[in-house]
């Protein structure tokens, strides 16, 4: 079976959908790169992480648009183009840059349909690189998905592997609502089996990565692979878990979590963003409201501390919930209640 990196899987999804639907355009900083350069070489970057490589040679400058460094204009223009009939895929080089253009994201894109009485749609995708682990410092490493998950009108996708990323990207571009698509930088080179051709993964449908009996683990994005590592270690002691990857945070497939808890009674949520008002806290709240009867122990939220992402290697390692911390927290949870 063919294996692709998450970078190449998303790239393939973009190629497929631009081929299939002439309304799809891509815009962002250096999505091609080299415009106005002295080498004359276009597609000199293909995005700083290479995710949009090859789109410009194939689809041309009208549909693959290198923008100046102007995040508000990038997202705002994507909004306008969407209202006027295109299906833009805008790239924010780093999710932290949401800070520059938040008005266009949460006052504009998120609210058009509601404010305008359901008479329009804003089918944009904002692709953005997320997450810590590469020592990029406090303004290039954040996991900002909780901030957009809380905004009605936005859909939020956080793929954990290459296969899901391709199917979710195809769904995202075809979806008629604004979608924020968070791509973890550390997952870009990670490979998994990715079929050729067209397939979609529906939003609001969690993936049950593993099935087990002792606890339920909900893990987001990169945390899924860390949970798998921890479960490999725990399996040696006969400890097994349901490992649930929500894949989309809005809509959220909370039912799958409740169903799992009926069997296990113990829940750990692993989230790479800080703990307050996080997706972990949101899921814990939903479980307290809707599946309290199934819980045999307090819910564990394994997150970084309430701090910005630090730079030094030693500090960033301590910041991110890693496989060892997950394993220890799981053992603790099994003793509780």
């Amino acid at each position, binding site marked *: 079976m063919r294996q692709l990196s998450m970078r190449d899987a998303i790239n393939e999804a973009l190629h497929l959908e631009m081929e299939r639907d002439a309304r799809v355009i891509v815009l962002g900083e250096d999505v091609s790169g080299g415009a106005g350069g002295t080498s004359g070489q276009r597609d000199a970057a293909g995005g700083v992480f290479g995710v949009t490589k090859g789109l410009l040679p194939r689809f041309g400058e009208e549909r693959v648009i290198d923008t100046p460094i102007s995040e508000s204009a990038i997202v705002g223009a994507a909004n306008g183009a969407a209202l006027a009939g295109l299906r833009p895929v805008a790239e924010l080089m780093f999710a932290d840059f949401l800070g520059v253009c938040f008005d266009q994201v949460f006052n504009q894109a998120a609210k058009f349909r509601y404010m305008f009485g359901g008479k329009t749609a804003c089918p944009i995708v904002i692709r953005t690189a997320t997450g810590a682990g*590469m020592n990029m410092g*406090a303004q290039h490493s954040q996991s900002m998905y909780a901030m957009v998950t809380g905004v009605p009108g936005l859909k939020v996708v956080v793929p954990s592997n290459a296969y899901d990323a391709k199917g979710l990207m195809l769904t995202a571009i075809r979806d008629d609502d604004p979608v924020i698509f968070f791509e973890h930088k550390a997952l870009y080179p990670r490979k998994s089996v990715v079929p050729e051709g067209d397939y979609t993964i529906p939003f609001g449908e969690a993936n049950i990565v593993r099935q087990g009996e002792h606890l339920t683990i909900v893990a987001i994005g990169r945390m899924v692979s860390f949970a798998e590592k921890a479960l490999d270690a725990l399996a040696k002691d006969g400890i097994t878990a349901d490992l649930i990857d929500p894949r989309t945070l809005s809509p959220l497939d909370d039912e799958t979590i409740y169903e799992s808890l009926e069997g296990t009674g113990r829940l750990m949520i692993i989230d790479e963003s800080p703990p307050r008002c996080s997706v972990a806290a949101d899921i814990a709240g939903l479980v307290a409201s809707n599946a309290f009867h199934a819980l045999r122990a307090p819910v564990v939220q394994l997150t970084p501390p309430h701090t910005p992402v630090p*730079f030094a290697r030693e500090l960033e390692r301590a910041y991110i919930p890693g496989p060892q911390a997950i394993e220890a927290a799981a053992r603790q949870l099994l003793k509780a209640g």
Partner: protein
Amino acid sequence: MVFERDFLIRAYRQMRTIRDFEERLHLEIQTGEIPGFTHLYSGQEAVAVGVCERLTDQDWIASTHRGHGHCIAKGCDVTGMMLEIYGRADGLCKGKGGSMHIADMSKGMLGANAIVGGGPPIAVGAAIACKVQKNGHVAVAFGGDGSANQGTVFEAMNLAVVLKAPAIFVFENNGYSEHTGADYAVGSKDIAGRARGFGMPAEVCDGGDFFSVYEAMGRATLRARRGEGPSTIEPRTTRFFGHFEGDPMLYRAKDEVARHRATLDCLQNFRQRVTSEAWLSDADLDAIDQDVATQIDTAVTTARSAAPPSPAELETDVYVSY
């Protein structure tokens, strides 16, 4: 124009320190010891130093992701910077910030910034503080040609004009916004013209010539210190490395960097000028070169063997009190 010997020696030492710091980092990064993302300033030294030689520790600057040169020119401790870039406990920001977030308020350095366009509004705020405090100090917003396309920068420029704030906008036009040419991304080509559109004086100067930057900055600081409002300077310059370390620079002509190193080197220009005017001798400059090389070597040696922050530091410094 005649310049004092001590002034010229200091200016050259500052530029040489930046150059050696960056060229050495370029080598050290290849060892894999330095974490993260580093954007080098080599080639643009005359801008940082030409600007900062008009400032005191009480004047402010807001820097960019390509901030090492600004930090050194503003007087940040070179070993402290190196420790920070290595992510060490004794770094200027305790290893919590890194290359893109070096700051030192005691030197008037408001911080490097990993958000393009993040700095100029902050600099205008510092300029407002100078005005409120009636202390005669000024604030400088450094940005590249790329930052000239951010809305935050336009807002900051207009605000500075409206408030007659003692702010100076320095657009270091090195020809590239990351991997895209300024010829493409800056629609007006001329950034100074945009600044004039906001109602402030603006001039283009030669960023490869310390004296050209220094003179332009002299006019801007004089105006700001007199309470007449903001100005913009646009030094035209070049960078000798990629956008970040590891950038293959496919967007640049293959021989461009070598050509620019041969013809647009601001340190060579400086040497040529001061020796031909007989203001300084080659021996004077060579002595500085040697001295700086030793200083940078010490900084690297110190940083390499220094201790990392303790994990307990992870949760300190988030708030003043909580």
